């Protein structure tokens, strides 16, 4: 057992990649039982700092100390050995789907050889049950890990971290894929970590998370610490420090009630037993659907884009029936969709022909931009990419840059640029702010507001705060039906945020 009074500290950490200085003399210290939020825009150096603490990368200069003694973190295993455990932001990496939940809880021990040679299923269950009990996880331990929801996978990953009695647990965007209710479970578990005197370093783009869980916030910008905020957290000031400028609420368009609905849903059922959806979407407005994971937000968007068909009901679009048989048909008629998780639904690996920035923007428009005989219109493609880079302020090395060299926010700008490259009548965006820092999010929303008002925009997000920032109108979904329809006005943002969060939470609880 480690003594309780250990402080994990990083001193004067400096790291550069090539000519760019990513961390410039950063020092942080986290007390036992303290939750410190690490904030910063994409590219501020957060991930590099985490990787250094987790033993993935060595610093160029500086030391990591535990209880005043320097430690060498040459590999992730070494970091774990001295008591620094990190839970990766990629949910896919958090466990092995084919193994049971119990085996996943013991994964570090099994892989590290710290288990008896003969390991019967009964012994695994017994050991796993002990860990689950400490973490107060109520799960069916013999069931395969792959049956777990995203949220429960995260919880298992953190419970795993528990079992090693670490000094510090690093959580890199743990709530990125979680709904409000699921995040609550995670926070309860983090409270447990605190009670046991474990230091927690927490990275998140969601201000609501930080408000709930952080004791202290450290803000990084351009590889330096630009601010430290203790409780009560002044998140406004932290945000300003983070992006180096004030984020104004984007100017809203005037009331558009007079505009005629372009898209109307009549008695749509997304599932056999789901409630009927009647809805009219008005051009020129940004409508945001929010609600917990699995509420049917994605299904709604995919139905409109021709990926799936409704079980009942009709859709009219500009007074004509709308029932596209495939995404290709939808795109032909000016209905565009950017799917959730850009690397899964929008991008190709960098070795693929046409996976560069310009090629990615051009993919759905190849036919429209083609020259005679089907030759790819490369000049049109380059011009479109250059235009997008300027308009959306995409930070890159040029129109032929590789997308995996861009930050999350800039990658998402490329996705938006693709679907703004030709005029659309309906633009569907599924989780467009996932893994996007506040500055980039602001740029994205601004670009949406500047769109031709003849286009309707429908966004799906499980993050209420993102919904509040982007929306002219907010729809709340639960169980594949729409349960609330708010038009946003000038009311106090935080009060509304709270009520919407309760509503979204209630949607799952019910």
């Amino acid at each position, binding site marked *: 057992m480690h003594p309780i009074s250990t402080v994990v500290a990083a001193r004067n950490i400096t790291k550069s*990649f090539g000519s760019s200085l990513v961390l410039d003399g950063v020092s942080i210290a986290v007390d036992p039982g303290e939750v410190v939020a690490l904030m910063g825009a994409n590219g501020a150096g957060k991930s*590099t700092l985490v990787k250094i603490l987790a033993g993935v990368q060595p610093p160029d200069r500086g030391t990591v100390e535990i209880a005043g003694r320097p430690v060498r973190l040459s590999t992730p295993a070494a970091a774990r050995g001295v008591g620094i455990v990190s839970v990766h932001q990629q949910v896919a990496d958090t466990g092995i789907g084919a193994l049971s939940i119990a085996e996943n809880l013991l994964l570090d021990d099994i892989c590290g050889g710290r288990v008896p040679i003969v390991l019967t299923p009964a012994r695994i269950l017994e050991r796993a049950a002990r860990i689950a009990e400490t973490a107060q996880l109520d799960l069916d331990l013999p069931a395969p890990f792959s049956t777990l929801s995203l949220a429960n996978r995260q919880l298992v990953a953190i419970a795993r971290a528990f079992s090693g009695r670490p000094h510090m647990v690093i959580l890199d965007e743990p709530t990125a894929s979680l709904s409000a209710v699921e995040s609550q479970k995670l926070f309860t578990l983090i409270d447990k970590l605190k009670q046991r005197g474990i230091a927690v370093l927490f990275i998140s783009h969601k201000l609501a998370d930080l408000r709930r869980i952080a004791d202290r916030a450290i803000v990084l910008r351009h590889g330096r610490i630009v601010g430290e905020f203790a409780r009560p957290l002044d998140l406004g000031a932290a945000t300003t420090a983070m992006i180096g400028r004030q984020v104004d609420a984007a100017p809203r368009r005037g009331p558009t009630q007079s505009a005629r609905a372009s898209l109307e849903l009549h008695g749509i059922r997304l599932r056999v037993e789901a409630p009927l959806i009647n809805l009219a979407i008005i051009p020129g407005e940004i409508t945001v659907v929010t609600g917990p994971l699995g509420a049917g937000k994605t299904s709604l968007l995919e139905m409109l884009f021709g990926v799936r068909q409704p079980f009942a009901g009709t859709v009219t679009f500009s007074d004509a029936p709308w029932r596209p048989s495939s995404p290709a048909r939808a*795109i032909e008629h000016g209905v565009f969709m950017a799917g959730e998780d850009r690397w899964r639904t929008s991008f190709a690996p960098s070795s693929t022909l046409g996976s560069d920035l310009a090629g990615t923007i051009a993919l759905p428009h190849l036919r429209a931009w083609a020259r005679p005989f089907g030759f790819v219109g490369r000049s049109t493609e380059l011009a479109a990419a250059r235009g997008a880079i300027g308009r959306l302020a995409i930070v890159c090395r040029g129109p032929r840059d590789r997308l995996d060299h861009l930050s999350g926010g800039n990658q998402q700008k490329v996705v938006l640029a693709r679907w703004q490259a030709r005029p659309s009548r309906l633009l569907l965006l599924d989780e467009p702010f996932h893994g996007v820092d506040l500055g980039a999010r602001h740029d994205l929303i601004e670009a949406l507001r500047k769109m031709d008002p003849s286009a309707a925009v429908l966004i799906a997000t499980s993050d209420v705060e993102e919904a509040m920032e982007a929306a002219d109108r907010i729809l709340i979904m639960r169980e594949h039906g729409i349960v609330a329809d708010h038009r946003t006005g000038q009311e106090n943002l935080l009060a509304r945020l709270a009520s919407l969060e309760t509503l979204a939470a209630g949607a799952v609880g019910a």
Partner: protein
Amino acid sequence: MSEIMSPTGTRQHSNRARLPLLAIAGRSGIFLTLIGLIALFAIIQPLFLRAANLLGILEAVSVTALLGLGITVSLAVGGFDLSVGSTAAMSVMTAAYAQVVWGWGAVPTVFLVLCVGALIGLFNSLLIVVLRVPDLLATLGTLFLVGGLQLIPSGGNSIATGMTFADGSTANGIFSPAFLVLGRSRLWGLVPLPVIVLGFVALVLWVFMERLRWGRLIYAVGGNELAAHLAGAPTVRLRSFAYVLSGLLASLGGVLLAARVGRGDIMTGGSLLQDGFASALIGFAVLNLRRPNVLGTVVGAILVGVLLNGLTMLNAPYYTQDFIKGAVLVGSLALTYRLHR
């Protein structure tokens, strides 16, 4: 920058400055190797550089390269076509059977053989696209199926004029002279026709894959099928097309082979699959593209051909050939992937 993710989201990109020399070696390593080899062989054995010998090399690799091009297209669409060797063998037997047993002329024979190749490709795409059998398994199945099927009509024997069947009848047809021209004639008495065919096919395919929008779509499907579908690409049609094209190119290779050999030899096609794959995979390293590509496949096939020809001239025994091919393949794969860490 720090927060950079690879497509899989796992590997960290590092901007470690690379030796420029190493970068140049990576980009044109295969070309440099090829030039180096030619120079080396030319110094040791001046006969190597004679036009007849160089064209002979191209002729020797033309069938392999055609199969490699088919494999390249199937790899580009994210698939895997193991059946090209069997398809080529089937084509040889079909060409022989049509002419020797049925007495068909050159034009209907070539047409029939190409149809057979396209049908085998269509069969593959049925298995893969409609029945959703994984490509590797589906085309492995086709490899056996077609490889076995081609033996049945002739009762497991090679087909040549005068052959006797089990029922005592003899086949009296002959390979049409017009057909044999395809494999044996030389343009201006110098350039073998198969080399012209390969050059033409490679050029058209290069333009198609690298410059036309359908090529872009094929690569997009191979890179991320879901993303291509959501961007409006007809993914089912593109994948089917790739297998049909692969089958077609393999049967074209079979036609050239049959025309060169002049009989329906049951032993043909032996190493065609491995050689075709080797060309396509060596091609990944050409221009350092790390993806299947038309130019790379042709250069890969030529590289192997030059090496085998040169070493044969230097009296290297024939049984070292597979070892040499393997060494080139492993070497170029290492070159391709090593420099991208």
